[in-house]
């Protein structure tokens, strides 16, 4: 017990909240958490947003972000309780004994300074290394982390390297001062799946080679299973389950953990192709105004009524551009769009109200997709009023029906978006789209901003609604688990081209082209040893490299 590097006992964390219209008051966000971490071990902290995992991660540096206060318990690091130690000692601790890797490297690096200067800053400021030694160590770390041109990459500025590379530079930054503990706070969440696995592997090897201890914070159990020795499952500031990786993944005890483990496994039976497609895109080529290259090249897809076409690809593959072309926000340079048997005008402004009504859209970020100054009733009611001329009691009745359909109640009708949870917000956006009685809904990454369990609920809701309303979905996503759960046919996009297209079974059965293979194999799977297997077997380097 005494030789563990980090020992946390009864950690309680509080925060002051400022609810609108009420007096500010204190709440407790972490209610007594215990864990031990030995040298060279990795503990994964997992939970949905609001579980307190990042807050606990920062507590190992005795730090509370924005109004957060460590109110009770003990945090022992290297044999001393850092909640009671001096400010001077804390300054020595942070950045040399304990370091931190944040989710967004792009936001954490200073864009005006070279990468090398930032990587070695903490190491030399405490006098632990000379500048020359620190630089040599940084280059060594760059090499270990698999960065291209390790000798010179440090002289670049942060914007001159890709997102995945910058995330690895940040890992080098954290490892450079030879810390005892590194806190990884969602280090791969903002990356594409194909890039994520390289970064994940780099982190895993770096941890193994340098022998540091690490806290790995994420909401994705499949990811944490690849790098951790132990896992702690958190929910609303309480420990749900704490055990070895093997036990949590293969033999979870609590219902909540079981739900997390099985979250990506739902499968959706594919519907057979029917007669006439509701949407037909032929030879779509598009580019943005003021640029001289096409972001979509000759894309052909079809979507049958009441079915789902999933458009898959990583960022920059042109999948959202395809949605903009179909909605008419970006008129294509070439090609035609047929909708419900008639040709759609290329430009949104010249489409009829009927065309607009039958083609609705749901966005990724539900909180900016709704006017913050309108109530739920106004948001859902407007399409009813606008397309069908409903007023007064009749409109209200229909709003309540829609609220029931999305499994929310009449009590939400007068709430503002800020008073809803993430999942509820997305439900309201779905109701707004359904209010127009559309034939096709474009869903642009509708579940990516949500916690896994909430995302699954939203997917199930969408599937149920498809049965009831017989609406077709064009489902844009980068997540193949989502695709398996919802799609009838799949279009895989890469750098503006359609690389693979067909029914779900066709697309997901071998033989694969190289890119589809890379994409399919990059989706984290809920089993141990998956990461090593993939790295050993894949045929193509990820695009982020």
């Amino acid at each position, binding site marked *: 017990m005494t030789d563990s590097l980090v020992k946390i006992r009864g950690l309680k964390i509080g925060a002051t909240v400022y609810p609108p219209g009420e007096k500010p008051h204190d709440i407790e966000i972490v209610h007594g958490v215990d864990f031990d971490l030995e040298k060279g071990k990795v503990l994964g902290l997992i939970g949905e947003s609001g579980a307190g995992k990042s807050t606990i991660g920062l507590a190992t540096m005795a730090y509370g972000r924005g109004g957060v206060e460590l109110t009770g318990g003990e945090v022992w690091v290297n044999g001393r309780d850092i909640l009671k130690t001096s400010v001077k000692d804390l300054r020595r601790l942070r950045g040399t004994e304990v370091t931190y890797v944040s989710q967004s490297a792009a936001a954490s690096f200073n864009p005006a300074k070279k990468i090398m200067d930032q990587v070695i800053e903490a190491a030399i400021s405490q006098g632990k290394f000379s500048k020359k030694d620190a630089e040599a160590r940084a280059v060594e770390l760059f090499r270990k982390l698999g960065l291209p041109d390790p000798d010179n990459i440090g002289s670049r500025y942060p914007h001159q390297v890709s997102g995945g590379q910058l995330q690895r530079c940040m890992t080098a930054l954290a490892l450079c001062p030879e810390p005892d503990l590194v806190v990884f706070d969602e280090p791969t969440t903002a990356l594409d799946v194909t890039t994520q696995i390289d970064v994940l592997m780099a982190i895993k090897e770096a941890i193994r080679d340098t022998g540091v201890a690490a806290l790995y914070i994420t909401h994705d159990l499949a990811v944490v299973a690849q790098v951790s020795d132990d896992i702690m499952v958190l929910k609303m500031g309480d420990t749900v389950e704490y055990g070895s990786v093997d036990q949590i993944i293969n033999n979870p005890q609590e219902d909540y953990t079981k739900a997390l483990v099985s979250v990506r496994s739902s499968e959706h039976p594919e519907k057979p192709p029917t007669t006439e497609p509701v949407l037909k895109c032929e030879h779509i080529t598009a580019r943005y105004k003021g640029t001289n290259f096409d972001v979509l090249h000759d894309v052909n897809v079809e979507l049958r009524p009441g079915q789902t076409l999933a458009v898959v690809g990583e960022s920059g593959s042109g999948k959202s551009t395809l949605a903009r072309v179909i909605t008419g926000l970006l008129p294509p340079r070439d090609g035609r769009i047929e909708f419900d048997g008639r040709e759609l005008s290329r430009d*949104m402004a010249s489409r009829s109200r009927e065309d607009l009504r039958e083609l609705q859209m749901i966005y990724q970020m539900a909180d900016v997709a709704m006017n913050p100054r309108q109530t739920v009733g106004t948001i859902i009611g407007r399409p009813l009023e606008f397309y069908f001329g409903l007023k007064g009691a009749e409109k209200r009745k229909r709003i309540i029906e829609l609220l029931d359909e999305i499994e929310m109640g009449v009590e939400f009708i007068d709430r*503002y978006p800020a008073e809803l949870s993430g999942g509820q917000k997305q439900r309201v956006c779905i109701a707004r789209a359904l209010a127009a009685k559309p034939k096709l809904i474009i869903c642009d990454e509708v579940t990516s901003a949500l916690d896994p369990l909430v995302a699954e609920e939203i997917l199930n809701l969408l599937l149920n609604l498809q049965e009831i309303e017989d609406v077709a979905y064009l489902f844009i996503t980068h997540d193949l688990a989502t695709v398996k759960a919802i799609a009838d046919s799949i279009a895989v996009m890469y750098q503006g081209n359609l690389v693979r297209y067909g029914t779900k079974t066709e697309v997901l059965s071998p033989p694969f082209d190289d890119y589809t293979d890379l994409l399919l194999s990059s989706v984290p799977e809920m089993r141990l040893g998956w990461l090593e297997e993939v790295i050993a077997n894949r045929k193509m380097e990820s695009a982020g490299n």
Partner: protein
Amino acid sequence: MMKIPLAAMIGLIFTASYFLVAIFAPFLAPYGMAEVVGGVWEPMSAKHWLGTDNIGRDLLSRMIYGGRTTIFIATAATLVSFTTGSVLGFTAAVIGGWVDQAMSRFVDLIMSIPTLIFALVVLSVMPVTIPMLIIVMGLLDATRVYRLSRAVAVDINVMDFVEAAKLRGEGRAWIIFREILPNALSPLVAEMGLRFIFMVLFVSTLSFLGLGVQPPEADWGGIVKENKDGIVWGIGAALWPAVAIATLAISVNLVADWVLNRTTSLKGGRG
């Protein structure tokens, strides 16, 4: 009942009393506006609380009537500048393209000429009446409001909920007044307090230079002008309007700050 912070309370009380005095001027003023009731520059007394002015009119009555004129002109000009400025700014942001370019460059052109000089030139060829003053001041100041509201609206215009409204097929009027305006209100309201004070200063400056409110009509800038020669003799009559302008400016700003603070935290509004 919501709690009003002390600073805002003081601001509210002062602003409200200035406005009330302006509205009920004829009932409150002890003497007529242009009535000569005593000697030149009489000191403060029970009969004339603030003394008399350069030709023997009661200074308190002049101040009350002057406040009425100044506040009325400033309020009206602020309304003119906000209606034209914000509607045009929002329109430019929503339509975009060459319409936006043309309007914005025209506004830049107007703004490149110092406002006071521009106003002096216009007012020296136009008849100086109160409606003319309001229109000239309002339109010149609308350029500033245009800039602010366009900048705010450009930000809001790219948000998904505005795109959703466009995809629904909503007209420009709905997008401007129902989607953008409610979200742009808090910066605009704060700016309104500031612009109102600029208007007070502007009309006072014009009157001081003789191109604003014409005598015998009273206004604060005019009172300074009429009594400025007394300062040399140690007579403080010209200082009262200055005090009035300063306290009004501070109290309006205290209120504007509070409004800004309150509305940004309201229902997840823009911070």
